[in-house]
């Protein structure tokens, strides 16, 4: 079966080669049958890679340890869901996932565009097949998922316990979908530049794909943050780690692009800027993929080996050099048709938003790649930490939130100063009231956080005002009741009001971020049963220990041999608030040198945190029990001496009993963070609003504006 997989890879490479040649030949000789054939090559590639992926999945599900990759990352005791997800936990499996997703999304995009923009599509096909061919080549020549060993080992190494969480199953496919979707606007931009057709049709087509990329990438990032916070033992959701940053950068440029595209649509301006943004997004996405696989930066996400570094650098070099060449050589076709009418216009606000977003991206880029830069400059790789990132991104984020509230208040093209002044009154008032209220309520003085809350209040008031006025207009026209008016308002102006909802979501998200980072209370403390400690306004008491021993053949569990934990009571001013049950799971290390019993618990220890989430605050807890006490060690040593491996689990029962009866003090980590839930809610609002904004309106709702029916006033040129 592995031969079938390898055959699929070779066939895929052939398809890519053919498709590239056919597409370019077809478009240059104007023979449509070849460009159609090239498009079908993309469909065929999707089909063949689906077969390859299915072969690999089946191997994992059937525990076929002849496959090296299955033997390395899965085992008989790994639960079925995680076995299926283990496909993408390794270098070669994740390359296959990437290539497969690329082929699927490319097929969809080219299918949707099959009758339009033919010339552009032909070149886009060639570019997309180029990417596909690159990843397939990597698999064939560097890291194949279909390498086998014969005879097949009896058991595999097992999936890293840190990955045995449901969110981890969906996070990589989502993120990879985001990355691969970024290459589609890139390919279409290359095609449009080559054919010199950066026009309205290209805008309409590219917007859809850019939005899909923005959505998937954004959701992927949010899921990663959520996973980190709710399932890992450090209690944070963002650490400015290199790979987190690598996924954020293309998302920022994609956001900028979605905004500046509207300016190009309306005024024919910023063509060079937009082309550059799209090309940058694609390049940043590939750089993000590269970062994880090359080990060039010290990061906690690290694939093994630097062997993939060189091909990726070559690809990125080609992409960047090619992009620069295309934009410079086509600058005549990218000349602006108009200029900015007035500084007081929504176009200006969008421009400012673009500048801030690109500024943010640059800061993050600099900080992320700084080790390489400093190594090139003075020989030592030095890295900057989160405080440096925070120093620059926080003010920029503040300005961004503020802008998202200013934009809705001014009109396109030019706004009237007098009406602008009127429109700003309520939102500015709301911001001032927010600041005063926070200070009066005794919120500790953290200027940046309070500034952010003020900006958020500004945004809420500004957008609330817009909705209120829009509903009023609707009711004047159609005399509907308020809820119906609201609905039809949004339905008829999806882009505008969907965009407003996105801005509200962003403001909510940042409120959550600001509150949870500036006003957090965290404690690390050792507690024995019966004792308690204060965290912020809460008192946490260690009620009693818990211990569970898992039978080895229990496949429904995540596979830990034993887990030790605690029951904690959280109370506030004497009233019980929540009961938390954090624990630590101990896994088999597979090293016989630790002894039959020592081996069972000597492997990785995984923290299972416990938290109580609420609208106002989260109480988060993690435990690190002490398993090295003399009493427990005696049991382990006795078991090592007297028990053969197959009977070793008996000792775990004794260990658990000893721990329950004479629990030693354990190390606890407690965090009380305000308003964290609003980060996730804000994110959901952002993506919901985005969907509303791009949802195509049903044709019945589109009101055709009759241009000629309007009586011409003096000054309108009369056309023959």
């Amino acid at each position, binding site marked *: 079966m592995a031969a079938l997989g390898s055959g699929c890879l070779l066939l895929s490479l052939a398809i890519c080669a053919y498709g590239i040649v056919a597409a370019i030949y077809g478009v240059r000789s104007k023979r449509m049958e070849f460009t159609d054939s090239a498009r079908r090559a993309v469909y065929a590639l999707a089909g063949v890679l689906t077969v390859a992926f299915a072969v690999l999945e089946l191997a994992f599900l059937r525990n076929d340890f002849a496959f090296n990759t299955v033997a390395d990352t899965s085992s008989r005791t790994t639960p079925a869901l995680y076995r299926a997800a283990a496909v993408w936990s390794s270098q070669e499996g994740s390359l296959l996932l990437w290539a497969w997703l690329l082929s699927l999304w490319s097929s969809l995009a080219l299918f949707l565009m099959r009758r339009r923009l033919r010339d552009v599509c032909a070149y886009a096909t060639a570019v997309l097949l180029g990417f596909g061919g690159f990843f397939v080549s990597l698999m064939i020549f560097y890291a194949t998922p279909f390498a086998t060993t014969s005879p097949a080992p009896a058991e595999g190494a097992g999936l890293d316990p840190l990955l045995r969480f449901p969110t981890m199953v969906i996070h990589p496919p989502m993120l990879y979908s985001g990355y691969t979707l970024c290459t589609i606007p890139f390919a279409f931009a290359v095609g449009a530049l080559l054919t010199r*057709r950066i026009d309205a*049709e290209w805008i309409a087509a590219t917007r859809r794909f850019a939005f899909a990329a923005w959505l998937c990438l954004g959701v992927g990032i949010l899921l990663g943050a959520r996973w980190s916070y709710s399932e890992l033992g450090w209690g944070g959701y963002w650490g400015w780690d290199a790979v987190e940053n690598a996924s954020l950068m293309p998302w920022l440029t994609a956001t900028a692009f979605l905004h500046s595209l509207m300016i190009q649509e309306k005024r024919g301006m910023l063509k060079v800027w937009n082309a550059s943004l799209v090309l940058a997004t694609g390049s940043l996405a590939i750089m993000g993929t590269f970062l994880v696989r090359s080990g060039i930066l010290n990061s906690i996400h690290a694939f093994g080996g630097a062997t993939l570094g060189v091909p990726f650098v070559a690809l990125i070099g080609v992409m960047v050099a090619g992009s620069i060449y295309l934009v410079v050589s086509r600058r005549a076709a990218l000349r602006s048709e108009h200029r900015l009418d007035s500084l007081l216009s929504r176009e200006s606000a969008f421009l400012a938003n673009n500048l801030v977003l690109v500024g943010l991206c640059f800061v993050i880029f600099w900080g992320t790649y700084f080790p390489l830069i400093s190594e090139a400059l003075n020989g030592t790789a030095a890295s900057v930490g989160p405080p440096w990132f925070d120093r620059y991104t926080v003010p920029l984020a503040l300005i961004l939130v503020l802008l998202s509230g200013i934009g809705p208040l001014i009109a396109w093209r030019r706004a009237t100063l007098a*009406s*602008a002044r009127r429109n700003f009154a309520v939102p500015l008032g709301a911001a001032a009231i927010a600041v005063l209220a926070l200070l009066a309520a005794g919120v500790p003085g953290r200027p940046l956080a309070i500034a952010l809350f003020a900006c958020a209040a500004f945004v809420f008031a500004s957008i609330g005002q817009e909705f209120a006025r829009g509903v009023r207009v609707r009711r004047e026209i159609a005399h509907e009741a308020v809820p119906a008016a609201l609905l039809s308002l949004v339905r008829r102006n999806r882009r505008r009001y969907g965009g407003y909802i996105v801005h509200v979501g962003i403001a909510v998200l940042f409120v959550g971020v600001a509150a949870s980072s500036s006003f957090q209370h965290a404690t690390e403390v050792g507690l024995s049963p019966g004792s308690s400690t204060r965290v912020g306004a809460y008192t946490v008491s260690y009620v009693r220990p818990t211990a569970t021993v898992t039978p080895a053949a229990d496949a429904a569990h995540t596979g830990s041999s034993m887990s030790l934990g605690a029951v904690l009571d959280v109370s506030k001013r004497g009233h019980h608030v929540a009961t938390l049950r954090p624990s630590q799971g101990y896994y088999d290390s597979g090293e016989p040198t630790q002894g039959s019993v020592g081996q069972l618990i000597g492997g990785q220890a995984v923290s299972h945190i416990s938290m109580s989430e609420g609208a106002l605050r989260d109480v988060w807890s993690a435990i690190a029990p002490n398993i090295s006490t003399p009493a427990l060690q005696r049991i382990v040593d006795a078991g090592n001496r007297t028990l053969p491996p197959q009977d070793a689990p008996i000792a775990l029962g004794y260990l658990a009993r000893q721990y329950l009866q004479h629990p030693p003090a354990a190390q606890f980590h407690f965090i009380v963070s305000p308003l964290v839930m609003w980060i996730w809610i804000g994110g959901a609002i952002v993506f919901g609003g985005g969907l509303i904004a791009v949802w195509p309106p049903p044709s019945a709702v589109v009101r055709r504006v009759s241009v000629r029916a309007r009586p011409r006033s003096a000054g309108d040129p009369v056309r023959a």
Partner: protein
Amino acid sequence: MDALVVLLTLLLVAGVLIVISAPLRARAGERPGTREREQSRGEPERAALEAEREAKYREIRDAELDYRTGKLSREDYEAVDAALRREAIAILDSLEHALPPSSDRLEN
């Protein structure tokens, strides 16, 4: 197992070849015509103009909404609206000239 793998691979290759060569085979069966080339030449311009027209209509509606929600004064609105309608008329005129004479696609 081996024979099965070989068979599957052959089927896969055959399937791919059929899918990819379909347009080439279809073309070989037809009479070569120039009609396609003409259409494909005029098509991009028409499609681009239609997209511009839709965008312009949306701008006109947006300007009206801006005025009604109090962001534009009456004079500013009338100036912007007149300019937008001029631009829309220019696009509609270009569309008329770009179309093949037989089809009538103007909306009114």
